[in-house]
């Protein structure tokens, strides 16, 4: 840790801000919130020309880099490298692990579905392709939509069934989280952890980045209302 503290300043490189958020990307925002929770000073920089990169977000300091696509993600890298660890003591708590799994799977699936498939795509165009020339942005968008459908197992035949499944799971997850959170500010022991950062990022993107029509048409809005207290 001493060696880490002697390093140069940290810089978090994310995708660009939009919708009033410091970064509108649902993968980058949890890292931003985590570093804020940890009160680690850092600069914020943006990469707006590599929307299909899996290394973004990343944290760099001198020649040290913690990338999104290595060792479980940036947050796990920072923990493993001894830079910042808010999950101290939670690793063996089953409920914490299951909450994290719930958010990282069902809620993340629902958000990805809404952003890329369920909505008209305007949000993701603003988040990922604002600085790319139209032909490139268009091709990458179509490629990513195809990738998301493959990832979620959506085909022409089962699209309705999968959509219902995704919304149902999200509803269950929101109910569980709402119950767990209650009136507290954080999910566990009244101190922030990576789970809180991931959940808060998810809620902020859902509230601010998704079109209003999606919120009113799906049951997510019922449970998002209860999470507004966060």
């Amino acid at each position: 840790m001493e060696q880490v503290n002697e390093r140069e300043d940290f810089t978090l490189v994310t995708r660009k801000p939009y919708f009033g958020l410091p970064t509108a990307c649902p993968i980058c925002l949890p890292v931003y919130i985590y570093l804020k929770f940890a009160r680690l000073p850092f600069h914020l920089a943006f990469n707006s020309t590599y929307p299909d990169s899996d290394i973004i977000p990343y944290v760099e300091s001198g020649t040290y880099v913690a990338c999104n696509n290595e060792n479980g993600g940036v947050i796990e890298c920072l923990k493993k490298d001894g830079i910042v660890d808010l999950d101290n003591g939670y690793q063996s708590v089953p409920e914490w692990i299951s909450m994290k799994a719930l958010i990282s799977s069902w809620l993340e699936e629902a958000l990805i579905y809404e952003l890329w498939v369920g909505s008209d795509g305007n949000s993701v165009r603003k988040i990922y392709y604002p600085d790319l020339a139209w032909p490139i942005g268009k091709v990458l968008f179509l490629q990513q939509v195809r990738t998301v459908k493959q990832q979620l197992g959506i085909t022409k035949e089962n699209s309705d069934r999968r959509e219902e499944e995704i919304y149902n799971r999200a509803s269950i997850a929101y109910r569980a989280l709402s119950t767990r959170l209650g009136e507290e500010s954080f999910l566990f022991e009244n101190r922030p952890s990576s789970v809180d950062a991931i959940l808060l990022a998810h809620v902020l993107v859902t509230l601010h980045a998704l079109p209003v029509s999606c919120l009113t048409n799906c049951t997510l809005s019922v449970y998002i209302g209860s999470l507004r207290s966060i």
Partner: protein
Amino acid sequence: MANAGGIPGPEQKPEALNPNLDEIEEEEEEDDDVVEEEDDDDLEEDDDAAQPQRKSRVDRPKIENLFRRIRNGPVPLRVHDVIVKGNTKTKDCLIEAELDAIRNATTMQEIIQAANIINYKLRELECFDSVEITLDSGPPELPGTSNVIIQVVETKTPLSGQIGTYTKGEAKSSTVEGSLKYKNGFGYGDLWDASLAYGFDRSAEVSAGVYLPRFKGLVTPMTARVFLQSQDWLKFSSYKEQSLGLSLGLFSIRHHDLVYNLAWRTLTDPSHMSSNTVRRQLGHDFLSSLKYTFKFDKRNSPLRPTRGYAFVSTTQIGGLAPDSRCLRFLRQEFDLRFAVPFGFYRTALNFGISSGVVLPIGRDFLRMSTSLPERFFLGGNLSPICSLGGPSALWGFKTRGLGPAEPRRQVRGDSSDENADASERDFLGGDLAVSAFADLSFDLPLRWFREKGIHGHLFACAGNVAKLTENEYRNFSLPKFLQSTRSSVGAGIVFPTNLFRLEVNYCRILKKSSHDHGKNGIQISLSAPL
């Protein structure tokens, strides 16, 4: 512009009258009394092989008189009609587009010279196995006129394959290329090709294109090329570059060349070890640019110049698209060189200076950064003699081996960080580059070497690269730039071939920066003329 094998090169352009006529004239001068040598006396091609001698004896005095008149001065003669025969597939308009000069000729000499040029241009189309131009007498009622008969034999094998070295508009250096060509598919002299190429700058390319000698009445040929190109710079700058695009050769005459490039370019780093600057540049770019090249090369050889001079200026403007999000930059390169003969052992001194600058276009452009692939990099296994067209080569330094550099990413391992290789750096290139060289070439004493063209050379070179953008221009000063200039000297042997110039040199670095990749020792350089 691609100079595929088979197309007559500039050195084969007709500069004199038809060689048959020259031979006849020389015979006339050497032996006016000889009557037995009659086969070469025909101005017209004589199909009557059964009576060559009798017809020749009858025509000989006339032809002698004709050549006497040609030698003495212009012989008035106009072209009444031009008849084209043999083109079943090739459109008439393609051939007739070359006939203006001969139609407007007013003397025999002009007609013969124009016929030579037409012959060359038609052969250049690569559509014909043979082209014969015959001057026949005009109608009797119109004295002083002649009919020109152009007999072409269209190629029977439109499909061909070849391997060679080329330079195309979108390529940054020469390439070794294998290609399949289909000639004259639509009868417009169109040349279609598909090719695989490997460049000397570690690039690979798959492309397909078409060459149109006469597109919609334009004077110069047009080319269009679709390409997928990749360049691997992982070892030097921790990134790979892939480009998918279209290149249009808009205009190409003797000294001027204008090319439009439209490309989707992606920089990636599969190693995940790039430095901060390179990592920030990874991603996609849209390139829409015009590149104008003015080239004036009066050297007697591009591989071993011993006399002459050359000047090249290349201007490239990027950002020519309605979408403001494409890459906007201005890039300018100059290259000037001279070759001075000394008059013994074919000794010649070649010297030259190259410079280049690239800047982004936009408000506060000096605060912006230039795209990595557009920057200047010096070094590599190239010879400055061959690399005409901007600063790139510097003897003794490895590819991209000098200039601004940044440490690569260090991965925390089980061992302590002190064991990690701190010398691994990414070379980032610069916005400004200047290089100069002097090369003294000479024949070697042994006759065998001289016959093969193998010769020796002594050389010295210097160069430097600097960053100006991202406010670095505030730290730039000419004295500092000159003081930090790298330099090297050396000697070696040159093995020129028809396609390449191979050099085996001993280089000694005189001055370099601590992070530069250059060292004393034997270096092999392989380059093709640009």
